[in-house]
């Protein structure tokens, strides 16, 4: 799994592609942890090229959100979620924990 991160002045954008499941979600977790270690807690996760996320993947995002929101130091926001992924997120009721944007520009601009 390739995870690409780009640092901007006010936030970082993390991007990956394909499927996120129990096999490769640890790689994604590592990428988010790396940003936290750098003291960067304003994060945009771009899912435009992601076509599947299992609950294991969602828990990486939930744990990252907990870390980012602690002490009001930041937030993880999501971009480019497909209809199918959004539908599954709604099924389990996890959508309320994330702000979602249609474009990276909008998400970056929210910080």
């Amino acid at each position, binding site marked *: 799994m390739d995870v690409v991160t780009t640092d901007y002045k006010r936030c970082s954008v993390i991007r990956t592609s394909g499927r996120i499941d129990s096999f490769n979600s640890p790689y994604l977790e590592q990428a988010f942890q790396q940003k936290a270690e750098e003291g960067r807690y304003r994060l945009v996760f771009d899912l435009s090229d992601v076509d*599947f996320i299992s609950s294991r993947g969602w828990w990486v995002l939930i744990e990252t959100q907990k870390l980012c929101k602690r002490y009001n130091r930041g937030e993880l926001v999501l971009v480019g979620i497909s209809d199918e992924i959004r539908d599954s997120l709604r*099924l389990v009721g996890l959508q309320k924990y994330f702000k979602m944007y249609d474009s990276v520009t909008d998400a970056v601009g929210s910080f």
Partner: protein
Amino acid sequence: MIYPARYENLSQVRDFVAELAKQAGFVDKVIYRVILAVDEAFTNIIDHAYGGEGLGDIECTCQITEEGLTVRLRDQGNRFDPTLVPEPEIKKSLHEVSPRGVGLFLMRQIMDEVSYEFTDKGNELTMVKRFD
């Protein structure tokens, strides 16, 4: 199809079930839901029935019937009845919420029937998605 119980095989299992769901005539949105349920079930077997990766096999069979698609997962791990796991408390605040039970919750939400049987051949989980 028989797969070693490892996470790296999840994508193959999803592809196998997706192909059958497509043949059965389900639309993309439903196919996504079904492969999500199967992914969660396969992961739960590795985590709970076997207690880790590489400790056995998981057999996955799919059958298109008049009423829909039946997916069956068999393993020889410890007795694990997912239908007895309580539902997660998603209404909690962000800092209280935990992942326990979410995979099973998804399986129950998505599939029309989820049943479990423990036989002398091991665990057998059967999930049915009906045509609307």
